[in-house]
């Protein structure tokens, strides 16, 4: 490998390898046998080819901010870290796209575009660090995807290194290339279908105006009703975020904001042409009041607005101020059941004897319950994991999803069988086999039970080498 990428770009000492043993989900750790940091498509392809010759599993990795263990190494496998590939290769303003390498940080794309009055819409909370390559793998979302969509709505094309080392271009800046939508199929495939080495992103013109308000409520019931009535009125908010009392307390502890100690709050953005947003923001404020808002705050200037958003975006990490440990959960419910689900979470939290702080993208029903616990107390970590699982099952019971933006990864593979049936999973597995018949890329993720790719798809039959214990599955 060092011949391919240079010795300086191979990490093999046990102490250095530890940097790569987990991503943002630190409770899952595996030390890889080698980490390589290629600098070009050709190097990535060469590394993947060599890994194949050596029979090694390959796990691609960006900044390692993922929260589901999607970049968790495989024992004995190679990690391909794409952090050196961070060039912005092309910006085409008129045609509305740019071409970047996968290691570019999400926020750096929008920073680069700012002088042109354009931006890249998906804005995951980790956007100052997380990479475009990771965003493509996870189909990352963010606060503003209610109106603007997710990564998959903003990726036009990619250059992909496949599991056999072949390099293929999929999609591109011109729309509707004949054939299957391989790009749409690829985004969100969690590193199991290939490694992107260039990505064509859609850029958007900045909206003319943005209006923000922050509203407090006695409880999450009134806040939930406010969300429902705003959406029912025909307004499509750019973002509408809810925090409960505990999450607000944490944000206040971390940032010193002067938020009151109340049951819930909403932070909402509308954007678009000026006259439109003046109407929709005024209208939304009226609806929030009618739903029982205690107080409405409208930022005086951009600085105040940024502070409000900082409070919201800091909420995850801020929970560390009020609890020694916590689990960030990610589930989705139909938006209309927000109030109901929060009561059920409260009941689950009481019976588990653990506190849950709720921060979420209310407009699209994407919950981020933060389960607080103390790892030093025997049994609490396990109880916290169980509580997280119970919340996911609650999401499924209401017709939702086990993940809205963090991905399935290593963490939630066990829940996939509860959301999808055997035929669903088997069909997804066939897609995987079409791209990676040897299951060399990121094995062990997403799918709840290991499967082989037969020469011909059919019912699962254990491979002879698997029965004899020579081959690992996944």
């Amino acid at each position, binding site marked *: 490998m060092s011949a391919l990428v240079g010795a300086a770009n191979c990490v093999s000492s046990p102490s250095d390898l530890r940097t790569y043993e987990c991503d943002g989900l630190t409770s899952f750790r595996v030390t890889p046998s080698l980490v390589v940091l290629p600098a070009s498509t050709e190097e990535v392809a060469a590394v993947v080819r060599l890994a194949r010759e050596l029979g090694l599993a390959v796990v691609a990795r960006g900044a390692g901010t993922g929260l589901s263990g999607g970049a968790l190494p495989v024992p004995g496998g190679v990690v391909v870290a794409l952090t050196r590939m961070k060039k912005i290769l092309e910006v*085409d303003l008129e045609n509305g796209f740019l071409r970047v390498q996968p290691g570019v940080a999400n926020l750096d794309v929008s920073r680069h575009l700012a002088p042109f*009055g354009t931006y890249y819409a998906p804005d995951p909370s980790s956007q100052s660090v997380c990479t475009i390559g990771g965003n493509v793998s996870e189909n990352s*979302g963010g606060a503003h995807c209610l109106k603007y*969509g*997710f990564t*998959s*709505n903003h990726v036009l094309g990619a250059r992909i290194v496949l599991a056999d080392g072949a390099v*293929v*271009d*999929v999609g591109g*800046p*011109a729309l509707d*290339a*004949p*054939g*299957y*939508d*391989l790009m*749409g*199929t690829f*985004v969100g*495939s969690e590193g199991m279908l290939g490694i992107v080495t260039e990505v064509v992103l859609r850029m958007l013109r*900045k909206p*003319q105006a943005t209006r923000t308000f922050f509203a407090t409520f006695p409880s999450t019931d009134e806040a939930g009703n406010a969300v429902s009535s705003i*959406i*029912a009125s*025909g307004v*499509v908010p750019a973002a509408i975020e809810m925090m409960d009392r505990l999450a607000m307390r944490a944000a206040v502890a971390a940032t010193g904001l002067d938020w009151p100690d109340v049951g819930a709050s909403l932070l909402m953005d509308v954007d*678009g*042409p000026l*006259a*439109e947003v*003046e109407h*929709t923001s005024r209208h939304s404020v009226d609806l929030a009041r009618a739903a029982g808002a205690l107080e409405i705050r409208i930022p005086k200037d951009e600085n105040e607005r940024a502070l409000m958003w900082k409070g919201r975006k800091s909420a995850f990490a801020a929970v560390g101020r009020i609890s020694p440990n916590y689990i960030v959960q990610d589930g*989705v419910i*139909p*938006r*209309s059941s927000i109030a109901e689900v929060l009561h059920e979470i409260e009941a689950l939290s009481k019976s588990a004897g653990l506190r849950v702080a709720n921060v979420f993208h209310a407009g*699209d029903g994407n919950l981020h319950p933060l389960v607080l616990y103390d790892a030093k107390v025997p049994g609490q970590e396990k109880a916290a994991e169980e509580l997280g699982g119970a919340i996911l099952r609650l999401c499924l019971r209401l017709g*939702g*999803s086990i*993940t*809205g*933006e*963090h991905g*399935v990864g290593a963490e939630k593979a066990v829940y*996939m069988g509860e959301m*999808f049936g055997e*035929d*669903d*999973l*088997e*069909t*997804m597995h066939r*897609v*995987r*086999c*079409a791209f990676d018949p040897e299951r060399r890329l990121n094995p062990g993720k*997403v799918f709840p039970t290991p499967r082989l790719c037969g020469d*011909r798809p059919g019912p699962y039959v254990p491979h002879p080498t698997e029965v004899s214990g020579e081959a690992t599955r996944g």
Partner: protein
Amino acid sequence: MSATGALAVRPGTEADAILGVVPKEVFSPADVEDARAVLGETARTGASVGFVGGGTALGLGRPPRRLDAVLRTERLTRIVEYAPSDQIVVVEAGLTLDALQRAVAAHRQRLAIDPPLPARRTIGGLVATNGFGPRRTRYGSLRDLIIGVSLVRADGALAKGGGKVVKNVAGFDLPKMMVGSLGTLGLVATVTLRLHPLPEVDVTLVAGKKTARDVRNLVAAMRDAQLEPAAVAALSTGPLFEVAIRFEGFPAGVAEQRDRLVPLVAKTSGGACEVLPEAAARAFWERHDALRTAGPLRAKVAMLPSAFEEFPEGWSGTLLRLLEAPSVVLYPTLGISFFSGVPSPDPAQGAAALASARAALAPAGGSLVLEEAPDGVRALVDPWGPPPPSFALMRALKDRLDPDGRLNPGRFVGGI
């Protein structure tokens, strides 16, 4: 193949032909379970199957290599679930777009796509063919609105992907995989869609006598001015375009954008920009729909938006010279256009013109797909053009999903 009791079956006739290939049998399953039984039966007998919804896009693609049976979705017309407060709907594949729009309009909602022929086009057919209209300018295409799918595989298994919530990243994106796959990976059985609120007001402005360069400049000026049109479409039956700009939303925002557009048109290319009264606006969009479905030859051209500027020269000149009474519908922000007309009587000449236009479009990633063509032209030209660089992957995907190659064999890109 024989019919089971529950399955409506009749012998195929000329009227059931897909690109001239007459099926032996036609099935009209009453529900998704019936459809599974049909596909399961074909798996046992090895029969090849094509799927037909509203039958509006049967001219798309190559003639199927084999067509033992046709499965019509005409009876799969249920709205399985509609949650207005969550703005999602789950429908069976055979529901027409009009029927869907009527059902959700009761709650002042809509599916934000507007292809021509909505009374005939079915949701399943729209998914299979990636159908769209001018509102794609603002709302994207079906790939941006589909959040879940269930498909009946070639072996009769029912598989679902996505879900019923707008935000969801669990599992591979089977819904997007199905968009545009033309019935070659499975039968689209049910589709879950994101809905949008109906706008309170809707206004269309039209500016006439614009060159392709004027259109380009106007689009750039609108972008600079941060206007957010719901649709921009340019129609032409000669060298110049009539450009329509549609604004939708709340009254104040629509009025303000309308008022800012008028001077913008004057500034970029001179001339008036007329605010159409309701009836005239309706007539304009009807004419748009008519041009989109016109002509014995119709080509969809996709390219970078800036590449259209050379119209009516270059690759577009080649196409225009081929056609008698040509008409063009251009979506300038998307870089997609539809050329239609009557091709010259010499098919070889037509084939040469199409090949030359394709060659000119290809270097920048552009493509030309024939949506309709006379038999003479079809005999000489692949309607899809040369397979894309990722064709081996497409082939692999097809082979995994339909290992016996029984679903619409040969009709899709590269003979898939």
